[in-house]
């Protein structure tokens, strides 16, 4: 599994807040992806109806997932694919390594796949002496920098153009030193030129899947660069990595979900390439792989099916939740410390790596609700984060000082007479202390607040005390 730094979330966040390059990159997110989604949504009057339809498709599929997985397997085998079920990340890695060994693979090209990140596939293949080449531009950028994705659809969203240019000049040494790279198009052209040779050299191509279709045994990828098509059609062997919840019953269902996916992700009506793959090359096909393997990963997901977190399995990985999250917008994806950042990660990560390691993630939300508002699959993300907080509280894993504070406050709040008596004593005193300035610059126990902002002083007596006076005829 890929490395976990979620326990150090606070430190990660602090470092991210102090990283000026990162902050420059993050400042573009609201003006980019979020604004484009908003425009696309406004252009489609039936968007809300589509969300309902999408939710219904996924809910239905999840309720009968065992049946659809079996149906898919049957159809995929009939089309000539080999289907492998991987209960864990380790199993998935072993399956792909075996496929590559049997193919005698020396070079493996990859389309973008979050499942590959989840199972830590690249390191495993590299340990076997295989050259692994990421062909999605964003994935390529982070691969050459030795980083991990910071976003599920825009893996290099944390980088600025200047950083990319510097990396290209450093790594692509065979090219003229005085070449122009100031324009995005020039960077893309250079990446294409470098990658073209690797596409042709690859023995195995690995892609993810946005959908698996039970009706036809097909898998679907949605891309904007065309790299996925070259990855899956040029090498001798094509490997698809997909997790169980990517299943949908029919082609028509994919049609509904794709209309939601592209709009929610990038604001496009449809992605540049939407590619359906059904088995290897048939007799008479002009191209395509000789063999096609579909590796279906569980890795803890089936355990979510029967519980309160089932709804998270509706996710179609559009990334809209992170594009609209104020916390993600402030700290970026790496601070979350594992593969899936942002609100969806704050719900999914504790399920996949354990709430002890990931306890900060569901806590680090303001519950502003924007993620749920934009989620095309209507996943109640804040509610599910609250479920994790409840699990943590019930397991007595909430930090002790916080628990004690909460218990003391609740004990008072549950006794209105005591509560109001205490408030009548405390607030006027605090109010008198802060009366002249109107605010405190520092207060004991509230350092978290006053480190960055002043705390307004109370006006003085409580409303309840003043109200009692006015009822008794005493003027305010």
């Amino acid at each position, binding site marked *: 599994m890929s490395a976990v730094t979620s326990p150090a979330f*606070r430190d990660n*966040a602090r470092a991210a*807040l102090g990283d000026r390059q990162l902050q420059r990159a993050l400042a573009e997110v609201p003006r980019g992806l979020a604004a484009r989604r908003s425009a696309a949504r406004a252009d489609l009057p039936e968007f809300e109806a589509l969300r309902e339809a999408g939710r219904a498709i996924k809910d239905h599929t999840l309720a009968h997932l065992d049946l659809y997985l079996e149906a898919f397997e049957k159809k995929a085998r009939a089309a000539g694919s080999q289907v492998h079920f991987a209960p864990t990340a380790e199993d998935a890695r072993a399956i792909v390594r075996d496929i590559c060994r049997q193919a005698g693979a020396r070079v493996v090209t990859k389309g973008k796949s979050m499942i590959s990140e989840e199972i830590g596939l690249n390191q495993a293949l590299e340990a076997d002496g295989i050259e692994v080449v990421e062909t999605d531009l964003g994935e390529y950028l982070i691969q050459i920098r030795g980083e991990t994705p910071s976003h599920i659809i825009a893996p290099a969203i944390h980088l600025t153009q200047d950083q990319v240019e510097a990396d290209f000049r450093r790594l692509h040494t065979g090219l003229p030193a005085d070449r122009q790279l100031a324009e995005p198009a020039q960077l893309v052209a250079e990446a294409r030129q470098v990658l073209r040779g690797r596409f042709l050299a690859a023995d195995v191509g690995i892609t993810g899947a946005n959908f698996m279709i039970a009706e036809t045994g097909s898998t679907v990828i949605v891309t904007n660069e065309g790299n996925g098509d070259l990855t899956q059609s040029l090498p001798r062997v094509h490997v698809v990595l997909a997790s169980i919840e990517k299943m949908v019953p029919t082609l028509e269902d994919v049609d509904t979900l794709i209309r939601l996916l592209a709009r929610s992700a990038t604001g496009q009506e449809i992605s540049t390439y939407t590619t359906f793959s059904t088995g290897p090359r048939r007799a008479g096909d002009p191209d395509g792989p000789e063999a096609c393997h579909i590796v279906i990963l569980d890795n803890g997901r089936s355990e979510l099916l029967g519980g309160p977190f089932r709804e998270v399995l509706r996710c179609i990985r559009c990334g809209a939740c992170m594009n609209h999250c*104020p*916390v993600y*917008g*402030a*700290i970026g994806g790496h601070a979350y410390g594992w593969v899936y950042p942002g609100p969806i990660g704050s719900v999914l990560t504790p399920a996949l790596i354990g709430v002890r390691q990931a306890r900060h993630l569901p*806590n*680090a*939300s*303001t*519950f*502003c*609700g*924007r993620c*749920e*508002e934009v989620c095309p699959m209507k996943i109640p993300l804040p509610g599910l984060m*609250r479920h*994790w907080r*409840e*699990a*943590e*509280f*019930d397991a007595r894993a*909430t930090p002790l000082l*916080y628990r004690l504070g*909460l*218990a003391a*406050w*609740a004990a008072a*709040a*549950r006794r*209105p007479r005591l509560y*109001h008596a205490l408030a009548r004593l405390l*607030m006027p005193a605090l109010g008198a202390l802060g*009366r*002249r*300035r*109107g*605010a405190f*610059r520092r207060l004991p126990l*509230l350092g*978290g*607040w006053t*480190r*960055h*902002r*002043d*705390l*307004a*002083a*109370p*006006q003085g*007596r*409580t*409303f309840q005390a*003043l*109200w009692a006076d006015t009822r008794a005829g005493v003027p*305010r």
Partner: protein
Amino acid sequence: MPVSAKSAAARPRVGLFVTCLVDLFRPSVGFAAVRLLEQAGCEVDVPARQTCCGQPAYNSGDRASARALARQTVAAFEAHDYVVAPSGSCAGMLRLHYPELLASDPAWRERAAAFAGKVHELVSFLVDVRGLAAVAARLPARATYHDSCSGLRELGVRDQPRKLLRTVEGLELVELADADVCCGFGGTFSVKYPDISNAIVERKTEQVAASKADLLLAGDLGCLMNMAGKLSRQGRRIAVRHVAEVLAGELADPPIGEGRP
């Protein structure tokens, strides 16, 4: 507008849910709410057996305490036609989350559902339920309005405050860029993750400054104290008030976080 036989009475009896922050920090908001409700033809009562809506417990995973506070609050307001809170966050808790919290409790399920149905956020109650179209207030200022998250997304409070603010004499209302983006308060989030909270509120105060407003308004005291605290730490001279204070002309007290001479 669905009107029950009871609420059709000339003067519906409104229970004011004061909210703990208003009770403790800014009673003037409570009095502003009372004044506005009375102007809208309501009889206002303030039950003494209310404290906090329980959101800090609920959002910290402590359902037992949240349930206890939910029962306490429901019991305190059973005699009222409406329950009105000068906060979208607390009203959202009462209206949407209490029924969920008490759903598995047969003794309280129906009481919670009946209670939830009569809960409203103050300004949306005035406009949507009481049909208030204008207020008799005056304040020469260039004001901007921040949409607090819960009121906006849970209760649909958006146009109502703007509608009434436009009737305040002398007040120029300018739109805030990204008005619907969180201010970074998030209740206990602001003290659990202060650095992240700070980064979010810094973006908010940048936008407030860019609006060139000299008065920032919102409908939730938590958000207001967060934004006022940041503006004051940054040395920006922008007054901050709860929208109810302006609508009610309840302006004798200095703005949030400002001292008395």
